[in-house]
């Protein structure tokens, strides 16, 4: 910027920090916390078992949120049924999220099953089995 090198360095550091901890990542972390609380305390659909939110992806304009979830299924309940239950309650959950967070635009929530967890466990077991051999 043509200022002294010391000030240039400070401003570059601030810009780098802003990019690393952007508004979308801060909002997605907060949305994750609020959704975890809402799903445990407010949603009482029998199709939904114990839900864990592993991550939230939000678009840049904060209008849409993709929520990655995993389930602890009980008995014959399948992941698809639990996901269907969650997506059918998405509107209600969005309303509760709007009350919990002070945002100009409340993101529309869409739930997706997170396969990375089960895949990661499976791969980890395969690797440890191969190492033992």
């Amino acid at each position: 910027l043509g200022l002294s090198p010391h000030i240039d360095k400070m401003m570059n550091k601030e810009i780098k920090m802003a990019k690393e901890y952007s508004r979308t990542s801060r909002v997605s972390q907060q949305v994750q916390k609020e959704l975890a609380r809402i799903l445990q305390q407010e949603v009482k659909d029998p199709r939904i078992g114990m839900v864990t939110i592993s991550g939230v992806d939000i678009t840049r304009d904060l209008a849409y949120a993709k929520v990655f979830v995993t389930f602890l299924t009980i008995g014959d309940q399948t992941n698809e049924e639990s996901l269907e239950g969650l997506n059918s309650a998405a509107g209600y959950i969005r309303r509760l999220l709007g009350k919990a967070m002070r945002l100009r635009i409340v993101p529309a929530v869409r739930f997706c099953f997170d396969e990375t967890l089960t895949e990661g466990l499976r791969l980890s077991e395969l690797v440890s089995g191969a190492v033992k051999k």
Partner: protein
Amino acid sequence: KAKKNVPSAIAHIHTTFNNTIITITDMKGDTICWSSSGAIGFKGSKKNTPYAAQLVAQTVAKTAKENGVKTLTIRIKGFGPGKDSALRQLQASDFEVSEIRNVTSLPHNGVRKPKKFRRR
């Protein structure tokens, strides 16, 4: 340390948004072993990841087996992202899981919260 021979134990999985702690106790509540993401070596934001929780469960399972634990009752507390991976890892560690219970403490509208949490 002397090995305790405890065939039935309780695994307390305490997950927060910053860390995951797993404690194995006997049926009375006396601690046999414990571990956490920080104890394993993770620092900062890596502590609350599902992978860290998985490693915590592996560590704790290994020590629990050395103390003769065969059957586990699991109690889950908290809203953190590590609970599912910790639970799955404990199930995959050749323990007989007799019960899984969610014991997250909820107030029946209790004490007044600090200003930051009263915005809602």
